[in-house]
C-alpha cells in the first residue's frame, strides 16, 4: 500500500492519497472484524505518517491531517467490520437454522420410516446434542425420572404435553437460541411418532384379538360337532341300558357298554387335543427340554396309540439317537402323526417309521400308503381345521397336524410332508441332534 502511494505521489496530492490506506483497513475489517482492524488502522496511520507526511521518516505529528487520516481509518474500520460481522452473523444463523431444519427433517424421516421410535432415540439424541453443541445426550420417552448426578434434564414438551426428557451431561449449557427453537420442534415430531407407534400397536393388538376370536369361533364351531357326536352316543347307550321298555339281550348290553366306553375314550382324546391347541394358541406351551432317546419318545407314542399302534413298523438305528426336547410335547406330535398315518392308510397296509441320524438332525420319517396330499396342499394341511377333501373324511378333528407342527417348532425342529412316488405321504419330523454331555465321573 505504501508502495502504491509512493508510485502515485506524482499525480495526486500526498494527503489525499492517504485514503488508499482504507483499502488495507477495509478487507481486514470485513474478514477478521474490529479487533484486527483497529491495529491495522493505527499501523496504516503510522506508515502514512512515517513515509509520506513531512517531516518524513519521523512519527512527529505536526498537522491535523494526521488526525483526520487516523479518524477516517478508524471509522472505516469500525463501520465495515460491524457491517461484515452482521452479515456473518446472519449467514451463520441461516446456516444454523438450515442445519436445524435438516435435523428435524432427518429425524421426522427416520421416525416415519422406522416403526420403532425407541430404536431411533440414540441417533436422534446424538444429533440434537450436536446441534446444541453438547457432547452426549439421551432421550427417554415418557420419562419423568429425576436426573442422575452426572446429568441435567431438559423436559421435551409439545404444547402442554410432556413427551419425554432430554438428558444432557451435568454442567453442559446448551445454546439457548438453539434449544428454544429446536427442542419444541423436536418434541412435536417425537410426540407424533410416539402416537403413531402406539396407534399402530393398538391396531395390531386389535387385529390379533380379532384373529384369535375368529380362531376361537372356528374351534367352537368345529368341535361342538365333534364333542356332540360321542356325547350323543354315550347318552343314547346309557338310556338304552336303563330303559325298562327295551328287551335287551346280554349281547345288546355288551355292545351298548362298549359304545359308552369307546365314545368316552374318543371324547377324552378330543378334549386332550383342545387343551394342547389352547396352550399352543396362548403361547403357554413352553417346552421343558431334556435329553431323550428318540426310541423312548416313539415307544411312548406307540403305547398311547394302543391297538392301532400295531399297524406301525418301526426301524431304529443301532445306537439310541439323542435329542433335547420336551418329551410330552414331542410325544403328542408323534402320536398325532402316527394316528394320522394309520387313519389314512388302507387297513391291510403297514405304516413305516424310520429314524435317521444325519449327524446334525434326527429325522423321524412316518410313511403311509394313504391317498397322499395334493401338491398345493403340502403346507395347508398343517393349518388348524384342514381336513381331507370331502368324501374321504374319516373321523378327525383337523387339529392333529397343526398341534404336531406347533409342538415340533416350539422344540426347534421342523415338520413337513413329502409325496411318495409309490403313493401315500411321508411326514418328516426333524429335530436337532443332541449329544450326551461328556461324562465326568459317571460310570
Amino acid at each position, binding site marked *: 500500500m505504501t508502495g502504491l502511494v509512493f508510485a502515485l505521489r506524482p499525480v495526486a496530492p500526498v494527503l489525499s492519497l492517504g485514503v488508499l490506506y482504507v483499502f488495507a483497513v477495509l478487507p481486514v475489517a470485513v474478514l477478521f472484524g474490529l479487533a484486527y482492524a483497529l491495529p491495522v488502522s493505527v499501523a496504516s496511520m503510522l506508515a502514512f505518517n512515517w513515509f509520506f507526511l513531512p517531516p518524513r521518516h519521523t512519527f512527529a505529528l505536526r498537522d491535523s491531517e494526521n488526525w483526520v487520516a487516523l479518524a477516517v481509518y478508524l471509522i472505516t474500520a469500525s463501520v465495515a467490520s460491524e457491517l461484515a460481522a452482521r452479515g456473518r452473523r446472519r449467514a451463520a444463523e441461516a446456516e444454523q437454522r438450515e442445519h436445524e431444519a435438516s435435523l428435524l427433517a432427518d429425524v421426522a424421516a427416520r421416525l416415519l420410516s422406522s416403526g420403532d421410535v425407541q430404536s431411533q432415540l440414540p441417533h436422534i439424541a446424538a444429533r440434537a446434542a450436536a446441534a446444541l453443541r453438547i457432547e452426549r445426550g439421551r432421550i427417554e420417552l415418557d420419562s419423568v425420572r429425576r436426573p442422575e448426578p452426572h446429568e441435567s434434564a431438559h423436559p421435551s414438551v409439545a404444547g402442554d404435553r410432556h413427551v419425554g426428557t432430554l438428558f444432557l451431561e451435568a454442567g453442559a449449557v446448551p445454546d439457548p437460541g438453539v434449544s428454544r427453537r429446536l427442542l419444541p420442534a423436536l418434541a412435536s415430531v417425537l410426540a407424533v411418532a410416539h402416537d403413531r407407534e402406539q396407534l399402530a400397536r393398538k391396531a395390531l393388538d386389535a387385529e390379533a384379538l380379532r384373529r384369535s376370536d375368529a380362531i376361537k369361533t372356528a374351534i367352537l364351531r368345529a368341535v361342538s360337532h365333534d364333542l356332540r357326536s360321542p356325547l350323543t352316543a354315550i347318552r343314547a347307550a346309557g338310556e338304552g341300558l336303563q330303559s325298562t321298555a327295551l328287551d335287551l339281550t346280554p349281547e345288546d348290553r355288551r355292545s351298548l357298554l362298549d359304545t359308552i366306553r369307546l365314545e*368316552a375314550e374318543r371324547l*377324552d382324546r378330543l378334549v*386332550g387335543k383342545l*387343551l394342547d391347541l389352547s396352550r399352543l394358541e396362548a403361547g403357554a406351551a413352553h417346552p421343558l427340554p*431334556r*435329553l*431323550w*432317546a428318540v*426310541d*423312548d419318545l*416313539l*415307544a*411312548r407314542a*406307540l*403305547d398311547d396309540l394302543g391297538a392301532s*399302534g400295531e399297524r406301525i413298523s*418301526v426301524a*431304529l438305528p*443301532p445306537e*439310541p439317537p*439323542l435329542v433335547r426336547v420336551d*418329551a*410330552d410335547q414331542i*410325544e403328542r406330535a408323534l402320536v398325532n402323526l402316527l394316528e394320522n398315518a394309520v387313519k389314512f392308510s388302507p387297513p391291510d397296509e403297514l405304516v413305516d*417309521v424310520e429314524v435317521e441320524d444325519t449327524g446334525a438332525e434326527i429325522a423321524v420319517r412316518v410313511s403311509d400308503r394313504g391317498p397322499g396330499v395334493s401338491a398345493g396342499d403340502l403346507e395347508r394341511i398343517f393349518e388348524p381345521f384342514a381336513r381331507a377333501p370331502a368324501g374321504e373324511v374319516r373321523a378327525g378333528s383337523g387339529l392333529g397336524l397343526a398341534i404336531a407342527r406347533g409342538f415340533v417348532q416350539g422344540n426347534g425342529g421342523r415338520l413337513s410332508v413329502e409325496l411318495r412316488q409309490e403313493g401315500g405321504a411321508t411326514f418328516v419330523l426333524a429335530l436337532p441332534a443332541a449329544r*450326551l*454331555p461328556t*461324562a465326568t465321573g*459317571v*460310570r
Partner: protein
Amino acid sequence: MSGTRVLVVDDEPHILRALQTSLRAAGYEVEAAGSAQEALAKAAARPPDAVILDLVLPDGSGTDVCRELRRWSTAPIVVLSVVGDEPEKVAALDAGADDYVTKPFGIDELLARLRAGLRRAVTPTGPILEIGELTLDLEKRALAVSGRSVSLTPTEFELLRFLAQNEGKLLTHPMILRAVWGPAYDRESHYLHVYVSQLRRKIEPDPARPRYLLTEAGAGYRLVVPQQS
C-alpha cells in the same frame, strides 16, 4: 381279598360313587372321604390296607395327605392325577405314593395298580429274580433272556437290578438316579434315558415297543412282567 380295606379320597361325588361300586364289586371293603381332613381322620380311626387318593382336594393337596400318612403307615397309596398336573404327581410320588393313574382312567387299570401295590407289600425277593423271560442272578451278576445269556455293562446291570427288585412299582427318575448313580446325580435324568434305551435294546424283543421296561410319562420307569398279548 375280603377284609382288605381301601380308603378312597376324592371330592367329586360321582367319581367317589363309581369307585365305591367297582371296588366293592371287586371284593374290597371301601371307606370314602371327600376331603384331606376327613381322609386323615378316617385313616387314623381305622388304618386302611390301601389308599386311593385324588391329588386335588378342597382343603389341601393329596401330596400333603401322602406325607402325613407315610409318617405311620406303609399301606400302598395310588394317586389320581389329571393331565397337565405332572409336577404335583411327581411330588406325590416323592412324598411316598406308590403309583398313580391319570383321570379319566379305566377301572381295570386302577384295580391292577391296587393289586400290584398290595402284593408288593408282602413279597420278599431272593437272589434270583425272574420277570417274564428275564432271569437276573444278583449273586453272579448275570442276565439271561429266554435262557440265552446277555452281557450287560456294570451300570446297565445296576439299573436292571434296581428295577427288577421293585418289579411292578413305578420308580421316579430321582429314585433310580440316586440308587444307581448315587445321590449326587439325582437331577441328571439324561444318563437314565440313554441307559434305558440301551437296556431295552438288550432285553426287549422289540425295543420300539417295550413290554418289560415301561416309560411312565413325566414320572419315571417301571419294570413289569409282560402281559400276554
